[in-house]
């Protein structure tokens, strides 16, 4: 099992969260006004509350995740929970691949067949998953740095276009929109699922991951939202991908517009997210079948990739299926079930690691 630090995981989460934020289509979820500032704030509070079972789980079952604790209670029980959890991960993976492909088709390469786009994205993510969790989290550090550079470039080049006139004191203007936006912000938290699996990989104090991640992502999202409002103002709702449009207006001398670079960074972050989700499914699978037989990593990943590709093809080619998946994901049901209820269940029913087992694991790790 590859070991990572809590800061590394927090940076990875920031990269994956931002990728989702940047490919989010404005209109329903992103609007001009003060509502979204408050929405992000309250959403992070709700998310913190949702993280509580996971935090208690990591405190009670040290060096364990929900699955290992459940498997210790009963193998069938553990495998069932693992399967249910994997379904959520698969749904998030498919949704991310579809959204990323749509984003690429809208921005970089609209002439490519969708299935070819799915194939390339999945292949790259599969390569990352095969390289392991530590490789993905290390790569995420570079992705986050690219994001930071991009935002700085945008702010510098668009400084003259920042209109403070667009800001006005307000709290919540449209209650209906506020709750829709809040639900969407809470629903878009697949990092919780990743954390539920990877908390066992964190070297020490896995809870600190959340303490670093939530405030950091809150600040970054507020800054990005502020940039949206200051530059696009009332036109915010009428553009498809707000940051992409802002980047297309940025002139950094070498390039007349930054939108291509912008698309590259989000694609980078998106692939990291899919790779991480795939690695989590693989970890669940290996943990579940460890006692019975040896797992062929490449065979598993290959079959899993084919499965995801088939699902993307099936859902991506039918508009009604895609809309249905989007609606389900926006409700955040998968986050509540897999990210909160399953850990809560394991917290109540799970079994702690015996002292001898813990010592043996430590010796094995040292060797």
């Amino acid at each position, binding site marked *: 099992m590859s070991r*990572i*630090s809590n*800061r*590394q995981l927090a*940076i990875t989460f920031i990269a994956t969260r931002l990728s989702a934020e940047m490919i989010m289509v404005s209109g329903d979820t992103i609007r001009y006004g003060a509502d979204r500032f408050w929405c992000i704030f309250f959403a992070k509070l709700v998310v913190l509350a949702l993280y509580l079972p996971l935090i208690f789980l990591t405190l009670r079952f040290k060096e364990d995740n929900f699955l290992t604790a459940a498997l210790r209670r009963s193998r069938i029980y553990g495998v069932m929970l693992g399967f249910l959890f994997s379904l959520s991960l698969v749904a998030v993976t498919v949704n991310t691949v579809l959204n990323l492909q749509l984003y*690429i088709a809208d921005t*970089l*390469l609209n002439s*490519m067949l969708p299935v070819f786009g799915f194939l*390339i*994205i999945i*292949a*790259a993510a599969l*390569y*990352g998953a095969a*390289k*392991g969790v*530590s*490789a*993905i989290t*290390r*790569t995420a*550090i*570079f992705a986050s740095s690219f994001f930071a550079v991009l935002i700085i470039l945008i702010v510098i080049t668009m400084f003259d276009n920042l209109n403070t006139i667009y800001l006005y004191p307000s709290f919540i203007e449209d209650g209906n929109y506020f709750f829709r936006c809040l639900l969407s912000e809470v629903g878009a938290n697949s990092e919780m699922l990743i954390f539920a699996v990877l908390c066992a990989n964190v070297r020490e104090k896995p809870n600190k991951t959340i303490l670093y991640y939530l405030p950091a992502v809150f600040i970054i999202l507020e800054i990005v939202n502020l940039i949206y409002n200051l530059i696009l103002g009332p036109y915010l709702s009428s553009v498809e991908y707000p940051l992409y449009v802002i980047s297309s207006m940025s002139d950094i001398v070498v*390039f*007349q*517009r930054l*939108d*291509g*670079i912008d*698309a*590259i960074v989000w*694609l*980078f972050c998106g*692939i*990291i997210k899919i*790779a991480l989700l795939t690695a989590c499914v693989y970890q669940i699978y290996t943990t579940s079948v460890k006692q019975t037989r040896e797992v062929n990593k490449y065979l598993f990943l290959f079959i899993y990739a084919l499965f995801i590709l088939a699902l993307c093809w099936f859902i991506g080619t039918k508009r009604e299926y895609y809309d249905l998946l989007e609606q389900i994901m926006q409700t955040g049901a998968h986050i509540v079930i897999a990210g909160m209820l399953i850990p809560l269940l394991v917290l109540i029913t799970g079994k702690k690691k015996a002292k001898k087992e813990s010592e043996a694991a430590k010796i094995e790790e*040292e060797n």
Partner: protein
Amino acid sequence: MKKRGADFSEKQVKTVAPQDKKLSTLLDETCTDIRALMNNSADLIIKFAETAGVKMAVVTCEGMIDKSNLANLIYRPLISNPPQGCKDARELFDSIAGKMFIAEEQKQLYTCSDVASAIMSGFAVLLCDGVDYALSIGIQGYEHRGVEEPSTHINLRASREGFVEVVRTNMSMVRRRLKSPTLKTEMIQVGERSNTDVCICYLTDRADIRIVNDIMDKLKNIPLNTILSSEFLQAFLEQSNSALFSQIFVTERPDVFASKLYEGRIGVIVDGTPFALIVPGLFIENFHTMDDYTHRPYFSAFLRMLRLVAFILAVILPGLYVALCNFNPEMLRSSLLLNIYSSIQTTAYPVFGESLIMYILYEIMREAGLRLPKSVGHAVSIVGGLVIGEITVSAGLMSAPVVLIIAATGLCSLAVPDLYESCMIMRLVFILAGGAFGLYGITIVGVMLMFRLCSKNAYGVPYMAPFAPFTLKSVIRDTFVRVDWRVLSKSDVTVQQLSGKAKSTNAKERTITDEQDKQ
């Protein structure tokens, strides 16, 4: 389990005399056995003499010994001042071996193969009639190149000394720079047929004992028969399959070698090559030179940044150009776009084809110019510069921007010579990706490359350290920026202390003096 295929190991080599045959008490028989074992080779010299009435023979290999040392240290004492009052031949030989001061390196040998091995390493072997052992005396004196300025990694203000082909000379150059009792050198022989001397150097109080043992095990188990260069060993010391980036740092400079040992690394010097290996190597070190430590920190930082930019341009610029021209021309400045399109209009090939052809032509020219005599090399330069650079543009075969971009990336790749090979291959991959899928293809290849780089660990040390995993202290200490010597002297970082190191960084665990001295 029995190995498939032919066994090429030295043990299977058929010689006239058995290799493990013990030396006979009869001098003639022993000499016949040695001659037979070495197939009566022309460079084998056996000189007979008589000392105190006992027949003796001195066996040497022509060209491997210092003749004046042979005369002064062996022939003269034996003939002019032989030990007196010995009862028999054995007592006489014991007296010569034990009491007569002949040379610093002396060893008793008991088998024919040991004798053969000693004379091929530049030893003179003394045989005595009536005695069943031989005495090897170190008087090596073969021809070799003197210490010169290294041909690679040339510096402005650092030392002018470079490693040479002789392992002992290289060891002394390292010792001269690290006069510390903790500098340990261990010699082993690698290659069943070549028996190449390989020296492993490390500082016992800074290197990780597990890495030392790991390297030692790997070197001992290398299945090659002949080791002619340090690069032969490199592949066996790599921890993972490294097609593009090596986790082993190669240097020709003893000052760089010594500084790396101080950082807790392990050095490997191979006889017969001036290129030493350093394990583990990090990606960032490819951008460092010895001059960076002699210049002012701000200038070093500037140079390192320049090298990084050169590396990035060398890798992606042609691919990016193809991608932008074919898929995202809106990103280019309007005036630049107009110029590019006007030159593209007059050429025969699409941008993708042009870039590919120009890239291949450049690499052919480089390869042709590299190994040719200097006089012919100039002709290649003229052909490259005038014919390919000028005529192809004026004839409308290539566009000027493509020629410029390929030439610029060629120059950029030379700014980071350690990564030249990787650069060359990656550039081709990026051209193909950019030509096929535009920026999308470039991103996909870039992401996969990053996954690859970030997954690599060299003996437990992450290859991309200290950036991924991120260690702020190390990043601001000596990566793309280097702090002042006054600040550098306050902190002391070894590779084992970098974040993400797989094993414990406990200093006590790493101190290996006690364990090894007990052994």
